[in-house]
């Protein structure tokens, strides 16, 4: 089997070259690698933990939504299949003709929308004016700021990113967001942090810019023996503290770690609300394809059996 020998040689060669090169580049890495956690949604059969999704939405609404929007989400998404507040059937006391599996009729979603902390702008009304009103289930979830200028004015010229896709938009998104939220620490003594900035070893930045002058040589580089700390500075102060949010379930710890894990669960769902449907179809597709492979291989052997080959 010459070809397979060639293939093996190539794979070994490729692996070796990959290993050698990643080692060469790791030395210049500037942020700490995110802590790897096991997530309920990980793996080919991973699904969302519905309780964690609901708690995560609570963390988002109570804390994150003060500065960050989720502009791609509508309230109705919260009640769709796979969403945090999806209902198979209505709770007792609803008329028979109400279908609570329809997100627009889902009573929890309707309540969340009507009591949401921000209003939506609608209109123009009959007199030609724009009006603010409480959201309904079909509205997009309103964010904290009307536009980017206001957002920057309120945040020391930093722009809080939208959270709809934040998990997909970062390398190792879930681990990264969790590590960032739980990883704030006091800055090392060798650096000077500007007012309104906060040090985080997981944030991608360049701490060599923040080294105190006594640690720099004439060219502005770190002097020998001084390590540039990992990470960077960001405008966001540590957003979570133990006990800052009251969970309805008394059994769930009210700690920064738990809040962070829950909000990551919610944001992962928000980044791809159809994940569970995707994985379920994937399992069926692979079973189908593997059976097809088997049938075709068997047919191939059968067709070629009579041939001198």
């Amino acid at each position, binding site marked *: *089997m010459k*070809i397979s020998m060639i293939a093996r040689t*190539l794979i070994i060669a490729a692996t070796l070259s990959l290993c050698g090169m990643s080692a060469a*580049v790791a030395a210049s890495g500037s942020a700490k690698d995110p802590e790897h956690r096991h997530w309920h949604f990980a793996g080919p059969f991973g699904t969302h933990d519905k309780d964690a999704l609901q708690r995560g939405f609570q963390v988002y609404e109570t804390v994150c939504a003060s500065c960050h929007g989720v502009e791609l989400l509508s309230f109705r998404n919260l009640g769709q299949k796979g969403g945090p507040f999806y209902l198979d059937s209505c709770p007792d006391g609803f008329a028979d003709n109400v279908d609570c599996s329809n997100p627009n009729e889902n009573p929890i979603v309707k309540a969340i929308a009507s009591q949401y902390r921000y209003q939506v702008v609608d209109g123009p009304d009959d007199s030609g004016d724009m009006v603010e009103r409480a959201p309904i289930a079909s509205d997009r979830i309103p964010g904290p700021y009307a536009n980017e200028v206001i957002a920057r004015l309120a945040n020391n010229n930093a722009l809080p990113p939208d959270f709809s896709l934040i998990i997909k938009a970062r390398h190792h998104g879930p681990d990264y967001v969790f590590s960032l939220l739980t990883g704030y620490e006091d800055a090392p003594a060798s650096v000077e942090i500007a007012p309104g900035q906060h040090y985080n070893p997981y944030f991608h930045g360049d701490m060599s810019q923040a080294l105190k002058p006594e640690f720099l040589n004439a060219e502005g580089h770190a002097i020998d023996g001084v390590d540039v700390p990992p990470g960077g500075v960001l405008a966001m102060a540590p957003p979570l503290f133990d006990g800052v949010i009251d969970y309805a379930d008394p059994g769930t710890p009210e700690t920064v770690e738990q809040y962070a894990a829950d909000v990551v669960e919610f944001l992962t769902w928000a980044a791809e609300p*159809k994940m569970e449907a995707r*994985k379920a179809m994937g399992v069926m597709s*692979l079973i189908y394809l593997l059976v097809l492979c088997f049938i075709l*291989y068997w047919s191939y052997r059968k067709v070629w059996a009579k041939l*001198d080959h």
Partner: protein
Amino acid sequence: MSHPSTYNPGSGLEKWLDARLPIMRLMHDSLNDFPTPKNLNYWWTFGGILTVCLMIQIITGIVLAMHYTAQADMAFDSIEHIMRDVNYGWLMRYVHANGSSMFFLAVYLHMFRGLYYGSYKEPREVLWMLGVVIFILMMATAFMGYVLPWGQMSYWAATVITNLFSAIPLIGDDIRTLLLGGPSVDNPTLNRFFSLHYLLPFAIFGVVVLHIWALHVPGNNNPTGIEVKDLKKDTVPFHPYYTVKDGFGIAVFLVLFAAFVFFNPDGLGHPDNYIKANPLATPASIVPEWYFMPFYAILRAITFDLGPISSKLGGVIAMFASILILFVLPWLDRAKIRSMRYRPAMRLWFILFVVACIALGVLGGKPAEGNLVLYAQIATAYYFGFFLIIMPLAGIMETPKALPSSIADAVLAKKKPDAARSHASGGAQPAPAE
């Protein structure tokens, strides 16, 4: 290969049609009864796999275009609309996005197969060159498709790649402006890229038809590289022998395809492309999709000026030359024997060539700094050296192994491995493996 037609119209309608437009005859003679060497291995299934890839891309692409908005302020959100609100939109989009990677994976294996078995050599030069045309069209299509989601990597890749054209003397800036529809990447760029992204796949389809036509004149090459001598002994009808074997190959390929689509759909993409395009914020590193990385590495490997040629222009020339050189490959190779199965020295050079290509691919995704630049330069030098020095010289200097007398003989020798081995130890006969 050209062979007498065996089509026999069965019904009156078929006879009527055959006298007017012999399309059924064409289909029968090229897809059903086409004489195909009986010793093709699994590396030959990639032609069928690529046809399936093209069909998948066209079908999913047409559906996506029904829901996509080619407007700079709306494109990004329209993709997310497809992902979230269109029924099975996520499936269409993930299949289409991963489909491009699968397409390139298959085309690279197809090309390496052609290289290894000498499928580009006389009388198949036109077949090979049409393949290179398809490859170039694929690269243009994929590049423009990657811009359409209008994420950060879309925007900045478009900026970097179109900038390359400005390195061309005299007319470079005008070409760049024409490509962009203005001074920088903006809404006109998106509009023309969308238009061309919809057009080019049909151009590819047309060239694929020519590619298959050019294949069916000389017929398939095969792992021994020797021509068919006796249709009866050396070949089998395409159907059912190769429809079923290709079908199996396609199904296995689809398993890999589905594994990516359903379980790691963003694994081959870059996270930055889930951030809306922002002309004011340059990403920390701008990297192309994996299938462009070898060429990106060649582009960046030219870090020195060569006389009047700046390093930028030199890089652009090297990158385009690395693709265009494939057109003259049939004339660079002076060897009489097609298959590297019987060219032991050349086989080692070929393995090194594949290693160089993979190394270039890895290097293209890394920052061009320190020793990595040197590695990329070495790999680039080998890439061109392989075609320009090794290929012409090997044909003159190598000592090939003896060829089997016919395809049928090679197949029979494989059936009786003991006989083959005793032949090989005698040194008179090759040891046909597989």
